[in-house]
């Protein structure tokens, strides 16, 4: 799979402050790429470099194997975290203006806007002013404006903030649909459950450096500790716990079940397999729960940030 976007060792300083230090990322075509990191890590600066808002001190960016040029702005749709619209302008006029700034023909822009407004059921807003709309409503319009010119690369910075769950779902489905239609999505957020749900690749930026990147599943495989979450019913739970502790690395676990099982995490060493453990356990009692502990994006995020 080829990469739509490649960032090659980009550095950016603001006076004494280093915002990005030698950061490289590759975003595969057709992927949803999660750009993660704590507040102030440098995500926004990186996104601005990709949008040619900020010029990097060093390094370069390739879009579709070409160095970034000013005409590339029409290939990118950007929804910034700090976003707004002209308060006293009408919705339709404003959307048309922004679409034309992205190089669209007025007539074409109008046609597509009508279509999008129908799809998101906001058709009757055309002649309203932004100041008459709620925050969530304005966000919907911003989303439409971002994707209207059908760019190859979509960059969303915290796209779901300000949306109620229903509209957040609506937007999520639209993002997935756009991906299926061939767009590549960069997605910056702090909400790990949406990373889990949407992203297939991630990069983690911390204190101006990239500390982790790759396919989310591969990363999870690297981060898994060969630990299993187990629920087992026996005649004497205390005895069984003692026995397990003598054989394995055991720690208490908590999850909800119907019965009164012994609940533990068992960490296996390199040469033990899950099957070995399971067959051993079946001799000790009734196994009601047996799950491999897969690290969540949240765990990986916290662990990586703490270790650095």
């Amino acid at each position: 799979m080829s990469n739509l976007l490649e960032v090659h060792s980009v550095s950016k300083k603001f006076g004494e402050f280093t915002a990005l230090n030698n950061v490289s990322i590759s975003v595969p075509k057709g992927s949803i790429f999660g750009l993660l990191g704590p507040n102030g890590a440098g995500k926004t600066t990186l996104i601005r470099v990709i949008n040619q808002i900020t010029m990097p001190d060093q390094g370069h960016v390739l879009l579709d194997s070409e160095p970034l040029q000013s005409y590339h702005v029409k290939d990118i749709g950007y929804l910034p975290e700090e976003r707004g619209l002209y308060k006293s302008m009408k919705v339709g006029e404003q959307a048309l203006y922004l679409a034309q700034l992205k190089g669209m023909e007025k007539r074409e822009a109008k046609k597509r806007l009508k279509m999008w407004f129908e799809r998101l059921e906001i058709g009757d807003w055309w002649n309203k002013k932004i100041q008459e709309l709620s925050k969530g409503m304005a966000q919907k319009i911003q989303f439409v404006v971002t994707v209207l010119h059908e760019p190859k690369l979509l960059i969303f910075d915290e796209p779901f903030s300000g949306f109620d769950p229903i509209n957040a779902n609506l937007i999520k489905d639209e993002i997935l649909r756009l991906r299926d239609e061939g767009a590549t999505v960069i997605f910056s957020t702090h909400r790990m459950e949406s990373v889990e749900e949407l992203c297939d690749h991630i990069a983690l930026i911390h204190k101006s450096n990239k500390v982790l990147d790759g396919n989310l599943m591969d990363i999870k495989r690297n981060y898994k500790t060969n630990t299993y979450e187990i629920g087992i019913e026996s005649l004497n739970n205390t005895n069984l716990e003692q026995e397990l502790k003598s054989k394995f690395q055991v720690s208490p676990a908590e999850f909800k079940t119907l019965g009164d099982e012994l609940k533990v995490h068992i960490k296996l060493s390199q040469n033990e397999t899950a099957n070995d453990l399971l067959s051993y356990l079946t001799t000790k009692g009734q196994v009601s729960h047996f799950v491999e502990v897969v690290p969540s994006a949240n765990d990986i995020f916290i662990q990586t940030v703490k270790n650095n």
Partner: protein
Amino acid sequence: MNYLPLIIKREYLTKVKNKAFIIMTFLSPLIMIGLISVVAYLIQMNNSKVRQVSVLDESGLVQHIFKDTENTKYTILEGITLENAKAVVKEKGDYGLLHVLKIDKLNEASKNIRFYSEDSPSLTLINSLGNKIEKELTNINMHRMNVDPEVIETSKISIDIAQESFSGKKTSKVDSGTKIIFGVIAGYLLFMFIIIYGNMIMRSVIEEKTSRIIEVIISSVKPVQLMLGKIIGTSLVGITQFVIWIILGSVLIVVVSLIFGIDIAQMGMPQQEIIEQAMQGSGNDVEKAQQFMNAFFNLPLTNLIIAFILFFISGYLLYSSLYAAIGAAVDNETDTQQFMMPIILPLILAVYVGGFTVIEDPHGTVSTIFSFIPFTSPVVMLMRIPFGVPLWQQGLSLLLLIGTFMATVWFAAKIYRVGILMYGKKPTYRELIKWLKY
């Protein structure tokens, strides 16, 4: 890609369609004319009030010269003491009492003349009384010295020095007056334009910052393009507004003066006495108008118009780019004060230099120097040009101005580019300089 026309169009249309703008544009000439009419009306009312002045002339020399006029009626008191006269005048509620003692030496007559009144009297009335007495006493004095006043009057010679340049251009005092008027109008117009529409640009930049739309826009267009679009769009708005004001203003003045019968031309000289005096001094009206027209066509009109356009545009762009930079540097209007000072100061200096020095000596050292310094040159040079400035001077000054204008646009664009993405605390001057290197 060039989105400049699109940006200009949006700036222009949103501002012109704005309700506040429409109200301002159509209401302010109405308010102005309304105010002027009220003032004119009040002055007329004041004029038509009749003043009663009593005269107690113990010398008997001057009492016959006080003839009633439309606004001032005189009562001559005789055979009573000053104390009684004061009491009578006060009781009648007269405006005041002019008291003339016996005069021994005409040269020292001032000591013997006094005006009594309830409040401090109108200055024009006192002056007019003084002039009347002075004239009469001078006449008497001449007679005493055996001089015939007729002879003095007929022997008077009036001089109006005709002026001509070495190259043969004839000018006159009226010419100079006309030049001053044109220079001052051009200079002030630019000054007003910069202040009003520079502020409008600044507010429009701040609006984009506070509504947070700025990042969306600059992911599509270059900040410099956006800035120039704003400046040009707002200037067009300004020109539109000015043209409407001029047209509306002229129409309203005509209408108002027709309805109320107020002679606007005479408003500057409210007191009848002054008008009378003025009429004596000058020739007749037709002759004056003729002189003015001549003076007008004597002006270097082509040069004036071209220079006005060039200096106006470059001067305006120079300042408005700075206004845009200020707007980008701050988050809200209250923070702009600190940065406004350095912009306003040279402007005010230019207007002062123009208003005093240029009128006094249009080609003196001070005027010449200030017409070259780029921040003052647009205003000062525009004021100098009606007096005839060599083309090389105009050219050099314009070149300097355009050079500086490019530098400030570059500087403003740098500040703008960084500033529009900065939120939070108000930057210091040192931080602004650091931004230039980002």
